């Protein structure tokens, strides 16, 4: 066993197209491109964890070999989504000539559906202007959020949701490779929780393995641990009218877990419909409605602590009405 370890999502990521075992249609087409040593602009679409980004890297790897990353500009639009990134970074890279011995460079725009509208418009121009020396690969969960003129310039490759067998088989393969003991039911449970997302499934497997044998129980423990239960406690405190304590807990969540207001709001939203929470059904909707409003304000850039305080005050008020 090696001394230094990396996350299994990285360790077991297919490096070349040959290693990708599912998404057969997509892989066949991509291999054809490699054979021709030419690619059009590409749009990879499909649910999270189905291998889109991996396929893009594998494609580049097969085209350029081990050092493929030097011919590629990788941007993640969920981190850098504005028009300036397109105007500066992408344009800079796209306009430069392709290096010796390589027909074109690649711009990989991951999570491209997070790009703003004007950024997409700017991108569309670049795709036309520099198509001679630069090819674009856009990766998106929701292709409908990509503007039509871009879609029409790309070859569209749809990644299908992974089937249960694909995921369980992969988990089994990794477990055996790592010498991890597991129950078959546990792998089924991981598939159910992952909702077909391979990355999520492998991460859960590794976390569960760190606790010992992978069992249904340890899988659920991992999922519970990764979702701080303080959120539920906080909701309960608020509903029982303990505003100050609930807010103190919310603040601790932000500090101890480094969560943002948005993170906490998302988790509250998840808890609202949980049966653990004993409130009249119609209140769940009232809460969700207000949670949504607060979420929107936070997205707009409003203050975390104050928006959460308002939400907690709302919960306290509802709690009083229930009792």
């Amino acid at each position, binding site marked *: 066993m*090696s*001394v*230094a*370890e*990396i*996350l299994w999502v*990285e*360790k077991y990521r*297919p*490096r070349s197209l*040959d290693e990708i075992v599912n998404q057969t249609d997509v892989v066949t087409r991509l291999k054809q491109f490699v054979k021709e040593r030419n690619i059009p602009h590409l749009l990879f679409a499909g649910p999270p964890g189905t291998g889109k*980004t*991996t396929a893009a*890297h594998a494609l580049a790897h097969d085209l350029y070999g081990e050092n*493929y*990353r030097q011919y590629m500009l*990788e941007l*993640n639009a*969920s*981190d850098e989504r504005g028009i300036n990134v397109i105007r500066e970074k992408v344009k800079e890279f796209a306009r430069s000539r392709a290096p010796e011995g390589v027909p074109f460079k690649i711009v990989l725009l*991951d*999570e491209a559906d997070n790009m703003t509208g004007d950024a997409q418009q700017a991108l569309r121009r670049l795709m036309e202007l520099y198509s001679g020396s630069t090819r674009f690969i856009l990766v998106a969960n929701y292709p409908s959020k990509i503007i039509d003129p871009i879609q029409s310039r790309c070859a569209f490759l749809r990644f299908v949701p992974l089937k249960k067998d694909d995921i369980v088989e992969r988990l089994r*393969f990794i477990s055996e*490779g790592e010498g991890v003991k597991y129950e078959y039911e546990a792998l089924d449970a991981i598939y159910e929780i992952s909702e077909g997302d391979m*990355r*999520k499934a492998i*991460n*859960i497997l*590794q*976390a569960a393995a*760190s*606790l*010992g044998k992978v069992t249904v129980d340890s899988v659920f423990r*991992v999922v519970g*641990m*990764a979702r701080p239960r303080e959120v539920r406690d906080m909701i309960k405190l608020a509903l029982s*009218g303990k*505003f*100050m304590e609930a*807010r103190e807990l919310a*603040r601790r969540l*932000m*500090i*101890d877990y*480094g969560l943002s207001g948005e993170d906490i709001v998302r988790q509250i939203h998840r808890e609202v419909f949980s049966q653990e929470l004993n409130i009249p059904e119609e209140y769940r909707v009232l809460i969700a409605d207000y949670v949504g409003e*607060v979420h929107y*304000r936070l997205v*707009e850039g*409003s*203050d975390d*602590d*104050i*928006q959460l*305080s*308002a939400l*907690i*005050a709302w919960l*306290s*008020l509802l709690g*009083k009405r229930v009792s």
Partner: protein
Amino acid sequence: MSERRLPWIIKYRPRRVEEIIGQEQAKKTLREWLEEWLKGRIPAKRVALLHGPPGVGKTSLVEALARELNMEVLELNASDYRRKSDIERTVAVAAKKRPLFRRGLIILMDEVDGLDPKADEGGIEALVNIVKETLNPIVMTANDPWKEQLRDLREYSLMVEFRELTNTQIITLLQRICESERLKCDKEALSYIADKSMGDARAAVNDLQTIAEGYREVTLDLARALLKGREKTLNIWRTLSGVLYAKQAWMAKKAVTQSDEDYETLIAWLNDNIPRKYSDPYDLYRAYESLARATVFLNRSKSGEWALLSYVFDLIGPGVAFARVSGEISGAKYGFPERIRLMSQLKAKRELREKLAEHLARRLLTSKRTVKNEIIPVLTVIFRNEADPAMAARLALGYKLDKEMIEYLAGPKTNDIVKAIEKIRRAKPEEVEDKKPKEDKTTKKKGGRGLDYYY
């Protein structure tokens, strides 16, 4: 409890001469002058005028010397006894008094530069007449002894100069108080307080107490946030009351628009004081909703629409004031906002999380957001679990996580993991130093795979 309520400038007032910081020349001059009196000789100058900036120990020195020399002090605050008749009734009587039991008597008159030559007509002349003939030493203090109205008095006075304290001297004093109060005080914070006090020990001690009583610790962030001006906390309390007790909407609006504080500070104070004052859940919710809407408008106005600021004031003033429909308001004291401390802690945590996300995102071919939402929670499970810390240790090595990052992920388990890393290092130093992790035989089908092409 009562001990804690005592203002520190009183609690820590120097009792002995040596406890007074610096001012060696003044100490010597005044002591010798008082000893003359005690020996029964009347010095040429019957009054000593101690002058210097506020808070450097003028009054304290008189009190401490009196204690050491076993003299009585009759303290007359000059601003209370202003007119000729007042001065004759009090100071003149004392000046002629024979000391009891041969103990010396010092007549102490504070703030003589506060005498108003017009309003206190005849006051100065009366004093001059007294000092010419006094049988007891008179000590006066003044910040500015060069005022015109003190000219005659100066002629009869032994001038004793007090110097502004240096920052180092003030920091030493503050450190002593911190130790005695068992307070955690950052050196930079004390230095900041000293700097702000401009040589005034009393101001510095007051500032220290302000921060310490609000937060039980003294950090640079807190000091910066609270000490924009010493008068400010009073003003903010006035503003808060103006809002929370407003009878009509315009009053609440006036309270917030005319406050010296900016709207962000006001929001922070309201944020932590609304729940202290509003106990009814409906009032509380309405007040917070109003405050929350205010931050929405504030944010909108920051995008350039500054006209929208007006709505911010509507919502934090009248909005909060008339959220209270129950009529109930608690008599609880106002508290300092937690926000400042919260924000600095939050900032540090979030920066670390961001750093970690950035560190891992490229390696894992994904966005920082995904790392934060999916990877960090998984790592947290691995780093904090009760089982063997070996996997966490190996991951820390594999991703070259630094101590801070490990601490962020592992929390209370940090030490176990650091130890596990050390153990691995000792066992196989050559492998740890090697940049490439071991070949992974399970996935390897063709071609060499190392981390080199990842970076």
